[in-house]
């Protein structure tokens, strides 16, 4: 099952998940905005890495994540 991982965001140690723009069970398209995470200074929008269904969110709103952490699974 394809993973959605926290990409390299530049000079960022840790982010907080601000908002999932899709719910579990919803279909997503490659390149569609999926989740917003925030750093100390800004907010990054992470896109879906491929078409599919968002089956599981592993880092819900409010959770912290680091580079390469598993955020969700798309099937």
């Amino acid at each position, binding site marked *: 099952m394809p993973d959605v991982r926290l990409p390299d965001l*530049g*000079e*960022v140690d840790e982010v907080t998940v*601000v908002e999932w723009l899709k719910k579990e069970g919803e279909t997503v398209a490659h390149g569609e905005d999926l989740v917003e995470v925030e750093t100390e200074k*800004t907010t990054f929008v*992470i896109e879906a890495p491929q078409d599919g269904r968002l089956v599981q969110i592993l880092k819900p709103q409010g959770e912290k994540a680091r580079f390469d952490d598993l955020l969700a699974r798309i099937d």
Partner: protein
Amino acid sequence: MTARPSWLKLKAPSPEEREGMRVVRGVLARHRLATVCQGALCPNAAECWGSRTATFMLLGEVCTRACRFCAVETGNPRGAVDPGEPERLAQAIAELGLRHVVLTSVDRDDLSDGGASLFARAIRVVKERLPQVTVEALVPDFSGQEEPLRAVAAAGADVLGHNLEVVRRLTPSWRDRRASYVLSLSVLARFGAHAPRSLLKSSLILGLGETREETLEALRDLREAGVGLVTLGQYLPPRKDAAPAARYLEPAEFDALAGEARSIGFRSVVAGPLVRSSYHAAALLAR
């Protein structure tokens, strides 16, 4: 959780940008160089490094001053200077193939010359070894000492920058107590006198509680000091416990201020919420 305005949202880096970041990180690590991109947790790091540019931070990563808007660590480096830094810097610039480079440093009040001799040597080494590269030096105030200012001015930077950072009234509450509005203007004016061929550049951080009139006063004061290039950006709290922004200026307000700055006589202006003082420095110089 803070509600950030929509204009402070960025797309996660593209694959090309991630590749650029990997290249820049490799060069920095190999030559043991620091950048303000990292020190200041810059939101544009992916964009700039993605296009293989960076703002080098000389003289270590620990600053002797503590300005409230800044993410760089404060401490006492106890006189430590790395004499091989200028040569490694030139090597890194060559490897990255940069045409324009911004050099800055932490404040070094622990050194009698504030780090000016190393800074000046770094400028000279880059200019000598890479004559095609334009050099922008963003320097501290050197406590207003004449000799360090002259040494840096004489090193031949194409752009000499010193950031005024904050409007007059708010300077004491935001900048380190050793910094001052009048001193920063005097540093810029003296650079103009000592290095008439260098372009002068400065920067203001907005959203700290200043009024529009106070921003315009600061811009007029910078023009009067001879500054021709200016950047205007939004204050972004550097830490969770840092003072929040008094206000997030809308992109249109930055555009309007940029127009005002041009009408005051600045030859080039970069203004916007995510603009930092070295953002798009090459383009600013080219205009």
